[in-house]
């Protein structure tokens, strides 16, 4: 703040000594300076935007080419738009099956983790009881440990429960590993909600769980949507857990299926179908991003700062 107070005292006399003509020059120079800076700024920003966009656009274009075109002319537009690639990807390459598997596992997991996570968060945020701090920090700690540490024992836990290679096994694991993040953010969110409504409802004879389901949960909708989006993106992205827990190729999720497909390209190549598969896998993410991008950016950056 010392900067701020000393500045006004020194500048006015300094300015009055200048002759008007020089002042104009300086002003003019400053303006051109701004202009060149602006050109540079836009130059840098545009270059990075191109670097980001080109690989993705190229992937989409490649998905519409024939295999021979992919290899002969990586830079040209497809001579004829091959929509058949998508059909082949969906059926022959089993992307359709993987897509449905992913959709089942991820959507059930997200619903489950949002329900269970908000229940825990609500109790932690709104009630005093012995052990509250321990439970809260147990969840927070779960956000910091690398999943790799748990990998080997987790495999045997799931195997011993007879859930290896099943949808419900993967759903429960997804839910459990998404809980820390959900609990952490929803606890913060429930703390910000006013308690007057809840108290009024209690006086009117509403039960504890009634207050939660009928009043607090609807109030928490903005938070639920944000956290739900992150959970969806995070779980759709998940590769390691299904790789270990879903050994059965009929139950592969999309990320697994694509990885296997890509690794097998050496033997029987159908690159165009692979790229069509990539585009199909990217579509739900793209849709969520386009609809919610402002919320995603705000939420993620706030989350990282906290």
């Amino acid at each position, binding site marked *: 703040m010392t900067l701020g107070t000393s500045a006004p005292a020194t500048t006015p006399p300094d300015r009055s000594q200048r002759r008007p003509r020089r002042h104009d020059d300086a002003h003019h120079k400053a303006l051109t300076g701004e202009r060149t800076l602006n050109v540079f700024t836009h130059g840098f920003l545009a270059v990075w935007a191109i670097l980001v966009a080109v690989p993705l656009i190229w992937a989409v274009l490649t998905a519409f080419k024939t295999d021979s075109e992919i290899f002969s002319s990586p830079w040209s537009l497809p001579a004829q738009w091959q929509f058949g690639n998508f059909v082949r990807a969906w059926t022959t390459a089993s992307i359709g099956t993987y897509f449905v598997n992913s959709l089942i596992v991820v959507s059930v997991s997200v619903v489950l983790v949002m329900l269970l996570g908000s229940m825990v968060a609500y109790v932690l945020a709104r009630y005093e009881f012995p052990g509250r701090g321990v439970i809260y920090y147990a969840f927070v700690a779960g956000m910091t*440990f*690398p999943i790799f540490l748990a990998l*080997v024992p987790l495999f045997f836990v799931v195997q011993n429960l007879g859930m290896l290679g099943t949808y419900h096994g993967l759903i429960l694991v997804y839910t459990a590993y998404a809980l820390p993040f959900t*609990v952490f953010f929803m606890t913060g969110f429930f703390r910000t909600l006013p308690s007057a409504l809840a108290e009024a409802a*209690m006086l009117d004879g509403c039960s504890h769980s009634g207050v939660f389901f009928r009043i607090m949960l609807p109030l928490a909708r903005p938070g639920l949507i944000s956290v739900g989006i992150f959970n969806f993106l995070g779980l759709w992205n998940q590769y390691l857990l299904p790789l270990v827990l879903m050994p059965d190729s009929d139950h592969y999720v999309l990320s697994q299926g694509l990885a296997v497909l890509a690794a097998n390209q050496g033997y029987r190549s159908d690159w165009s179908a692979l790229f069509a598969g990539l585009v199909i896998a990217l579509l739900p993410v793209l849709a969520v991003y386009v609809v919610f991008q402002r919320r995603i950016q705000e939420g993620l950056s706030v989350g990282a*700062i906290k």
Partner: protein
Amino acid sequence: MRYGKYRFIAGFLAVPLALYIVFVVSPYAQAFYISMTDWRGFSGQQNFIGFGNYIELATDGRFWRAMGHNGLLLLVVPLVTIVFALFLAAVTTVAGRQGAVGRGGVRGSRFYQVVFFFPQVVPVVIAGVLFGFFFNPDAGLLNGLLRVLGLGWLTRPWLGDPALALPSVMAVLIWGAVGFYYVLFSSAMKSVPPDVFEAAVLDGAGRLRTFWSITLPMIWDSVQVSYIYLGIMVLDGFALLQVMLPVPGGGPDGSTAVVSQYLYESAFINGRFGYASAIGVALCLVTLLLAVAVLRLTRRQQTEY
């Protein structure tokens, strides 16, 4: 109003806690014990061998080589990502400063944010497949571009060359991360009170000086946190490497093998579960050390404000 409170609390906590304990807490706890056994294979019995696995790990060349690759990633990726992101963010906010106080960003900054941020939501596996092919010697976009530009002599089998494979992976990691940190730093810079910048300008501070003495210290917290987040990201790196370079042993001549891949191979290919758990514990320790080290080493600059 108090009636049934504890029954309600217990009812709400029971299922999620059970799930959390079975699938998260217990595996983490077991990992430490398993790391002290010689457990191999599915039917094999476990014998307690104390720190045996850790002693073997200390002299395991493959482990240290993988750790070295993680170390290189840890040095390069966060640094380059943060410098790029800071640069782009500073340039946007500074250029937007020309008006009276308006630091609303340059024209079209909203558009740039949307584009830059997108790689953050692209699933890692998709990025892996995409860039695995991007670097393809024959049909890849990169070599294709070099040929179009008449730079055919620069074309390389990027992912097949042990010297180039890891840098190529770094480029992809940076590609994916810059946008997120650009958005993060931009919003941090916008939340710095404008009078601080005005004061600096009145005192005759140039752009570079303003950035170095005002902007950077004011957002130092975000930079620190970013380093830790990026560090955790590159300490894993499993999905991208496994998909981009689907070669057993981790890339050409093992030149991109990282610790997480070695752990996966030890456990699920060689069946050495005790040993793999010891690697997991080591990885966890490194992660914690990284967080502590970053916070410690960078603390001095933060106390300026």
